């Protein structure tokens, strides 16, 4: 067996991961993904052991509901051919490995730093002499936007090459939010500190990332979660999805200057986040999810409240959508704007909502279900056109679907039970968790050392793949449509920069 197949959240001894020579590792992983839309790379990273780097590649297979893990040990001096030349979806992962360890790829087309303004292993290459993509022409002009923006958004630099109003190319420069979160995971020893860290990976995906961390920790401790724990996480994930999707619909309306949609959707988001406040004392659900704990039990009183909230939310939400989808001026801004084709989405390994709008069936809730998702039998929402309109529609459809799930879930409130004690993480384990946050697939992986301490923690936010989708989507669009394209993806800077 060249690879090890595990289920979502299944802990395995590190030694059980087959170790291959680089050429076989290369053929295996590129072979697994090539021309298989149901497979994609969920995480590919390295970690240092003495003076060597161990590369671990995790390929998820959605139809078999398994994740195929393989590894390879390389030396820093090795000259390696890159996966990227065969498949673009490995591009960012290899850039990250190169940035972190200075590993040399002989034929990687674009070894641009991911999170730093310089090459960490070659001080002569930095952002001031970085060759941004450019075209030498009198007729084209460059527009640089950011990292400081007019609105209150996170920092990121966007460099457009335009022919008049038309965008020919967009290069995105990120990393301004790099906080060294993965390193902090190894430095902090208290579980409470680690949970707080996980909550702060991306401010808009608190539930998603904290659930991923809690699952990793429980899996390392071989802890069986009770139904009550699973219940609260599933409810929180769906509530987060509703809140953010509704907020995004509001922001999309703001960007096309449709005031009615902007204010109505903005108002509708509030009762949902206020419900989170009632439940756990924080509108962003910080402090709600902890490994092996139910800190805020979902009481029958909360069931009544949530029913009330949903009953008043749903009719207004549907009516506003009806208005929006019937408004010609809004549709003319959404339709055929920012198209990502099925082929592009597949080749860059797009995940989550962005992939689903281009016809790629990728949803962890149905392909690698966790918590109570196996019971919900999630039907994946898929659109085919890959334009802003599809991303608006999919948000609407997912909110409606989530409301249905919440109603189903709270109709069968689990009994509060005595929770078993959380033990300490096992020794020399590898584990991987996949969670479908509102933006898409969140992947956390962890490796423990001989004393059960974390020796490597890897986080992959869906934004990591999807920023490239944004860059592709705006090609040949008008530059004034960039904001609405950007908002339709609403990718995370913090989640990418870590």
């Amino acid at each position, binding site marked *: 067996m060249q690879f090890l197949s595990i289920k979502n959240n299944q802990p395995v001894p590190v030694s059980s991961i087959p170790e291959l020579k680089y050429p076989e590792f290369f053929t295996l992983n590129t072979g697994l993904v090539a021309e298989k839309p149901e497979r994609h790379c969920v995480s590919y990273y390295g970690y240092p052991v003495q003076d060597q780097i161990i590369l671990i590649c995790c390929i998820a297979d959605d139809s078999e509901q398994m994740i195929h893990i393989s590894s390879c040990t390389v030396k820093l001096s090795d000259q390696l051919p890159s996966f990227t030349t065969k498949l673009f979806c490995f591009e960012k992962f290899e850039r990250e490995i190169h940035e972190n360890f200075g590993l040399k790829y002989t034929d990687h087309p674009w070894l641009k730093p991911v999170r730093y303004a310089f090459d960490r292993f070659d001080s002569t290459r930095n952002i001031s002499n970085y060759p941004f993509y450019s075209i030498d022409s009198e007729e084209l002009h460059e*527009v640089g936007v950011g990292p400081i923006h007019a609105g209150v958004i996170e920092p990121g630099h966007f460099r457009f090459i335009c022919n008049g109003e038309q965008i020919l190319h967009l290069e995105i420069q990120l990393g301004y939010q790099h906080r060294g979160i993965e390193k902090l995971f190894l430095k902090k020893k208290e579980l409470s500190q680690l949970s707080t860290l996980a909550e702060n990976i991306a401010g808009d995906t608190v539930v998603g990332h904290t659930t991923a961390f809690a699952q990793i920790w429980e899996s390392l401790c071989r802890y069986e979660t009770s139904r009550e724990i699973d219940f609260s996480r599933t409810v929180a994930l769906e509530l987060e999805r509703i809140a953010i999707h509704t907020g995004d619909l509001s922001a999309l309306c703001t960007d096309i200057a*449709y*005031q*009615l949609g902007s204010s109505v959707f903005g108002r509708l988001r509030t009762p949902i986040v206020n419900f989170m406040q009632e439940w756990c004392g924080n509108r962003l659900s910080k402090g709600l999810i902890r490994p092996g704990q139910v800190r805020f039990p979902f009481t029958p009183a909360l069931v009544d409240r949530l029913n009330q909230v949903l009953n008043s939310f749903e009719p207004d939400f549907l009516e506003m959508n009806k208005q929006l989808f019937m408004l010609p001026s809004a549709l003319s*801004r959404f339709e055929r*704007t920012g198209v990502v084709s099925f082929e592009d989405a597949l080749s860059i390994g797009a995940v989550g909502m962005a992939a689903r709008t281009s016809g790629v069936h990728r949803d962890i809730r149905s392909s690698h279900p966790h918590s109570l998702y196996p019971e919900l039998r999630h039907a994946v929402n898929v659109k085919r056109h890959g334009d802003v309109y599809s991303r608006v529609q999919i948000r609407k459809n997912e909110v409606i679907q989530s409301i249905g799930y919440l109603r189903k879930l709270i109709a069968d409130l689990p009994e509060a039970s005595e929770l078993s004690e959380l033990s300490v993480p096992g020794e020399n384990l590898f584990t991987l968790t996949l969670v479908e946050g509102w933006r898409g697939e969140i992947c956390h992986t962890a490796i423990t050392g001989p004393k059960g301490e974390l020796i490597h923690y890897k986080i992959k936010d869906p934004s990591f793949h999807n920023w490239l989708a944004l860059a592709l989507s705006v090609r040949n669009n008008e530059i*004034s*449509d960039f904001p609405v394209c950007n908002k339709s993806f609403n990718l995370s800077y913090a989640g990418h920069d870590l």
Partner: protein
Amino acid sequence: MLSLLLIFMAALFFTGIIVRTKSLASGRKGPGILQPIWDVFRLFRKGAVYSETTSFIFQLAPTVYFSSVLMAMLVVPFGRSHGILSFNGDFIFFAYVLALGKFFSIIAALDTGSSFEGMGASRESLYSMFAEPAFFILMGSLALLSGHTSFQEIFSSLHIGSQISYAMAALATFVLLMISMIEGSRMPIDDPKTHLELTMIHEVMILDNSGFDLGLILTAGYLKFAIYGALIVNLFIGVIPFQYAIPSFFAIQFLMAVAIGLIESFMARFRMSHNPQFIVVLTSVSLLIFFGVLLILQKFI
């Protein structure tokens, strides 16, 4: 003289009414009607900050822009009472003195060397270029109809009697209203509320202006609206006595502001590439007016 006073008074409330309408339409209380004016006063008390890359043009432009609007205001009549200046062909003076102000604001935007402002400048000049024929065909047709070439004479001799001239007045109102939306950078051409530099037109050109200069530009913007409002009013009041004309001036200005507020609340702005198309439509509407005039004058079968 009367028109000058009325325009100043209308300008005090105009933008405030638009903002208030939009607030009420979205279920908010909204700021007071005079808030835009207080904002301008606040700006007038401040000094301006200039970027080191700009030249004297950037410092000069806001003043030129503001004075061009003031000068344009001088030729606007009110019914039978003419503006402070009135001469043959003053509507041409009106259009080109405004264009002079716009020219300065465009070169000032280019002066900053910012790629956004260059983009804004190119959009603004493109749209003004498209809007120009609409204005001239409209005014030219009215001049042809009345046989006069100054604002005051044209408006005071307009006979709105036959059905076809009612249709013409309605079309002319539409053209002037839309030109004022283009010039005032309101929806559906431009979104004055947006924070997105890439989609702005007028706002992006004044990103580098601050304090006193910004105050001048904003005031000029408010005045421009009231000026176009006054032109629309002139289409209707003709020779009716002042005791009816003055209330109808304010009523029409109020309706215009509310209409703009409602348009901005209940529709999305155009895609940038649809803007030129839309503006060229104004020219064709003006052409309709022109053919209407030819019909009335029986120079056209």
